[in-house]
């Protein structure tokens, strides 16, 4: 899948202006809904495996989605961390398995991570996961030594 369906969905949402979100699926009441659109329930499985794992074209597409969906606005360019946490340090608040990262994007997390499951099809989310998994932790962890 390419990005076109994603962009089309976003354009639709943007043109719709300040639309009220539909009632979110159970468990999502405390989440921000990206674009005001609630994910449908029942499509997340934290035990699921990433179908694109290690696929470089998928990672590149995920990187484009990371910018197109404004993920970089909170997590920083290259996902190094900004107002939101770093996503390339190999450390995860909510678990770093394929399915757990998917779940974080799909359903959002408390403290402001929006739920993107209402905007992004499963393939686009998996490609985002692929992109994040492709990132190398920074070589110099600055807490370790000072010269």
């Amino acid at each position, binding site marked *: 899948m390419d990005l076109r369906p994603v962009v089309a969905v976003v354009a639709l949402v943007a043109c719709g202006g300040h639309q009220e*979100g539909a009632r979110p699926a159970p468990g999502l009441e405390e989440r921000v809904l990206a674009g005001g659109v609630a994910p449908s329930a029942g499509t997340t499985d934290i035990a699921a495996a990433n179908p694109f794992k290690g696929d470089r074209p998928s990672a590149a597409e995920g990187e484009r989605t990371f910018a197109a969906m404004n993920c970089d*606005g909170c997590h920083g360019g290259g996902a*190094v961390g900004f107002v939101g946490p770093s996503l390339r340090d190999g450390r995860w*608040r909510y678990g770093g398995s394929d399915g757990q990262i998917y779940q974080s994007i799909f359903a959002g997390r408390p*403290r*402001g991570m*929006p739920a993107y499951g209402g905007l992004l099809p499963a393939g686009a989310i998996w490609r985002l996961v692929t992109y994040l998994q492709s990132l190398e932790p920074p070589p110099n962890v*600055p807490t370790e030594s000072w010269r």
Partner: protein
Amino acid sequence: MGRMTLPVVLATALAPAAAGTAGAVQRGSWTMPANDYASTRYSDLREITPANAPRLRPVWTFSTGVLGGHEGQPLVVDNTMYVVTPYPNVLYAFDLTREGYPLKWKYRPPVDPNALGIACCDAINRGAFYASGKIVYNLLDGHTVAIAAATGKELWRTRIADLSEGETTPVAPLVVKDRVIVGASGGEFGIHGWLKGLDLETGRIVWTAYNIGPDSEVLARPGVFKPFYDRGEELALRSWPPDVWRAGGAPVWGWMSYDADLDLLYYGTGNPAPYNPEQRAGDNKWTASVLARRPEDGALVWAYQFTPHDSWDYDGVAEMILTDVVIGGRRRKALVHFDKNGFAYTLDRVTGEVLVAQPFVDVNWAKRVDLATGRPVIDSTKLTGASRGNIKDICPTLEGGKTPAAPAAYSPRTGLFYLATNNMCMDYQATRVTRIAGTPFIGANTPYHPGPGGKMGGFIAWDAAAGRSVWQTPEPYPVWSGALVTGGDVAFYGTLDGWFKAVDARTGKALWRFKVGSGVVGNPISYAGPDGRQYVAVYAGIGGDWFLLSGDVRSDDPADVRPPADFMPDIARHTSQGGIVWIFGL
């Protein structure tokens, strides 16, 4: 309603009284963010002098238990100190009459944690306002609360902003008579910026004035709204492409002032959204502007845009300091403003005319400000946009030549302004961006590097009539603390690497410093204790933009480890996050 201004020529004759609101407060109180409606951050207390300042010592500290950036400042009223923390916006009341300053009470409001993901730049709060026995402040998630100062009881709580539209509310309110004036952040989320006036007794929203859009919503009425440089109707609509203004930014996250004689309320507006200027052709009025309104009904009286069609994220929300300034032998009712864009403006606050505009740091995006038109003369090679690629070496950065987060101070005794500065430049790669509600709407990548000379900050004294600095002290890091100046001619500020400093207000000579445990992004205050002695209080607690930018300054989240900031890789060697209230005395 308190004093407004002192002419510079008479400056040494009088000291300002602490400005009261609706009832007398004792001398030496600090009842509002900037101590007075003129936003001077001047205390007339004079026990601490350049001669004895080296003997300053800490007399009390208190951990707030919160690690977010501690911007803003405490209040002191009736021998009680009030402290608002960053999210979750706890309000502490300390009894200064008792040993160890124990708590009188503590107010813990409900605050939506999702605000943490909507606030652009850490979960900061810029402070409270005391009026008529109430402590009034904003919660990060879009609520204003009024708390009984004596008991800690919540009197009212009003929803003023909408998180789902990207609005958060770290701004400190200003209370004028029976109006509580509030605004919202969200220039990075494509909000439709506004100012609101609430009823002090009930919290009811009396008026809403948008900063952009049609005259009917901007409250620009024929015969009342008279900008100095602009003519015609629908200025804040016609200076935008159709409908783009609806998500055009113009947040209100800085500081407000009030002139009781003119009955005018002054505040600045933030950046237009998004950062990619090619998505919003036109001047984008009234973003990056100063607006003068009637507090009673919000009517717009004049407006002036510092940075038309802002292409660099130069918010205009910094404090508007109201003083009289003698220019060309003529005393003017002035408004002095140190903009993110690097120019210091001296305006006529009656009309909005620009009297003086000179750079106070290295500036290269504009050559000068044309006083005939009020417009900057822009260096077109520094214009940004998605089609223009990566524009290199723009000075100052979008952090500002001075950040609005760190307000300046003015001494009627020296006639000088005191401010923290940043000496950094940036590259600016704008990109096309789509607004998705609940997510950032930015559209630029803007890495920083140190400005000329390599020292990234400073603390300076400024002559607003001449438009030049009188002295300047370089600092190795950007300086993000507000300034305080006192009747003893001592100025105070703090640094990102955690020093709190006193300098001679006349010469800039360093007098004293103390390492306060975390970088300072708050604003010092001075007050008289129950013992009649002079004290100085300040928060330590690095954060705000430096939560985003400093790299590894946090240790509370093992799931978030960052590389150092490439433009100041060793800041984390000197500070980590914290949240400490400090009080110093002789």
